[in-house]
């Protein structure tokens, strides 16, 4: 659906041969009293202008931490970026000063969060919160900021926007609150929007509305979108490419169609098989056995090996490198080709 839609030309210049946003070999660890947790272990992904990348993974796989590292809003301590690069329009964000990074937030890269009720400030009206970026960052007058806030609320399809400007977050429904959050993120017209599990706290019908809204806004405004989710169903209709994360690494990277047709990593395969299907009667729902690893003691070799049905001795001993499968697909599995050919029916 969306991946075939005609896109407007990218709004920002991307250096020739480069990507709009590129994360290269990022390492992040959390230093806590109990020890050091290696949360991100060499994540690499990229985003081109106008496209939608889905980052998929369980809780604790590091997808949100990667996003917060891109934004530069990790809490330090406990989080420390230990290595890697985050290139935005060819320049490494990690080497810039805090003030320069602040300038990027909101105007170039904006972010929306999972639970809009706690992510919005409870004691300020939503109009004030949407207008805040416009007043503080874009230098708009109070009246202009109000006017623009109403436009933004209209844009995210909040009914009777002008009347609701003075309402507080708790007076909105879950879906409307997430729309407020989106309106706030769009205020400074960002080039990249990172949506961190934007529909997790919502009803299923509302989830679909929010996903549609995000897809429409991305297309109409010509933004690039990083969609972080643990829900494969959410991804299917919206994303162009998918990066699957496990234990702080990208384990598989592919375009949506080929990944759904033939996953090339046992973890992705497990995720796909654990979706309940309406067209297959009387089958027990398969699950991935075991639990995600403790990030303070990541298993040797391939971190997925204790849970993997394909695991051999080599998986315990050697960390698998990204195997290139063609069409820009990669899989960090010693048996990527076998998994790929062993199709999900």
């Amino acid at each position: 659906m969306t991946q075939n839609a005609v896109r407007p030309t990218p709004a920002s210049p991307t250096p020739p041969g480069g990507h709009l946003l590129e994360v290269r070999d990022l390492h992040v660890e959390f230093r806590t009293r109990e020890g050091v947790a290696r949360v991100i272990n060499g994540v690499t992904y990229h985003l081109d202008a106008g496209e939608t990348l889905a980052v998929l993974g369980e809780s604790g796989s590091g997808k949100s931490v990667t996003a917060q590292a891109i934004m530069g809003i990790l809490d330090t301590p406990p989080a420390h970026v230990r290595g890697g690069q985050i290139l935005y329009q060819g320049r490494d964000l990690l080497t810039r000063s805090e003030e320069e990074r602040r300038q990027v937030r909101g105007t170039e890269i904006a972010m929306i969060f999972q639970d809009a009720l706690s992510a919005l400030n409870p004691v300020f009206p939503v109009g004030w919160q949407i207008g805040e970026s416009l007043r503080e960052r874009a230098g708009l007058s109070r009246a202009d900021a109000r006017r623009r806030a109403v436009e933004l609320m209209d844009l995210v399809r909040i009914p009777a926007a002008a009347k609701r400007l003075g309402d507080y977050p708790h007076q909105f429904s879950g879906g409307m609150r997430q729309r407020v959050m989106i309106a706030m993120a769009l205020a400074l017209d960002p080039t990249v929007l990172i949506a961190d599990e934007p529909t997790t706290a919502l009803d299923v019908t509302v989830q679909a509305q929010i996903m549609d809204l995000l897809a429409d806004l991305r297309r109409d405004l010509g933004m690039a979108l990083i969609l972080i989710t643990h829900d494969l169903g959410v991804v299917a209709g919206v994303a162009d490419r998918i990066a699957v994360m496990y234990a702080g690494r990208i384990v598989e990277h592919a375009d949506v169609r080929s990944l759904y047709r033939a996953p090339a990593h046992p973890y992705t395969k497990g995720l796909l098989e654990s979706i309940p299907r309406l067209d297959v009667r009387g089958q027990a729902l398969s699950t991935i056995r075991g639990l995600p690893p403790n990030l303070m003691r990541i298993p040797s070799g391939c971190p997925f090996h204790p849970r993997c049905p394909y695991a051999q001795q080599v998986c315990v001993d050697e960390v698998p490198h990204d195997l290139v499968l063609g069409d820009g697909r990669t899989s960090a599995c010693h048996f990527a080709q076998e998994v790929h050919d062993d199709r999900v029916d």
Partner: protein
Amino acid sequence: MFRFILRRLLQMVLAFFGTTLIVYALMFAGQGDPIQALAGERPVTAAQRAYLTEKYHLDATGVGGFFYRYVTYLGGLVRGDLGQSLTGRQISDILAAAWPVTVKLALIALAVTVLFGVTAGVLAAIRRAGVFDHATLVLTLLVLGIPTIVLAPLAQYFLGVRWPIFPPTAGAEPSFWALLLPGIVLGSLSLATALRLTRTSVTENLRADYVRTARAKGLVRRRIVGVHVLRNSLIPVVTFLGVELGNLMSGAIITEGVFNIPGVGFNLFRGIRTEDGPLVVGIVSVLVVVYLLSNLAVDVLYAVLDPRIRYE
């Protein structure tokens, strides 16, 4: 909101009658011979006894007599007549002289609390686990651990007598300067509490999700802490300060006693010591009203500060 206030005002009427009844009973029901108590050691002539019995409605005896006198007293109270103290002065005159002093003292104590307690609490929270944070923790524990009855004479001795920076006692019609040391002593306890409360509240709010959102918006840290965090953190602090002001307004018996300040607490204490029933009941009745009103004000303020709170 209007209905809430109305309901609270009606509850206050009940609370008012309840407390005055209890205080009235405590002061008068247990007395053996109030006329003899009034006269002290001197003999009372029959004519004096008859006059006083008539004046204080002492001819009615038993429970019925007690309620008769209570209702008569209330009747006066409702008309604004607090009656006379046993020393013959109008109680309303005593209060009119004492209250401004107590209010001045209370405001100094509150200003000290806000100025140092809240500011230090915010700083301790921002630099959590730093030197300042640890230092304030030890200091506040020390202050909270010393009762006023020890702290007040200590401050008076060291800062008033040994190194006479402040006047050791206030006396009649005290100046601001004379009230400053007692104000600091009185405020130190609420200062320590306000500091701990502010620190906890700010620390909690600094970790809140909306702070992460504010950072993602690219706001400067000064604005994130100064507007977003502070506005949320001060909700419990302002509530505490409101209740505390109510407490301070009702007089500080120990502090006013030690520093010889002719405020409400000072007069109340004198009334209790000299078994001056009308004076004690009169002052307490007014204190009850002050306390109830300040609590109502705090509840209303709370709803104003936190839009999530709605009373209905």
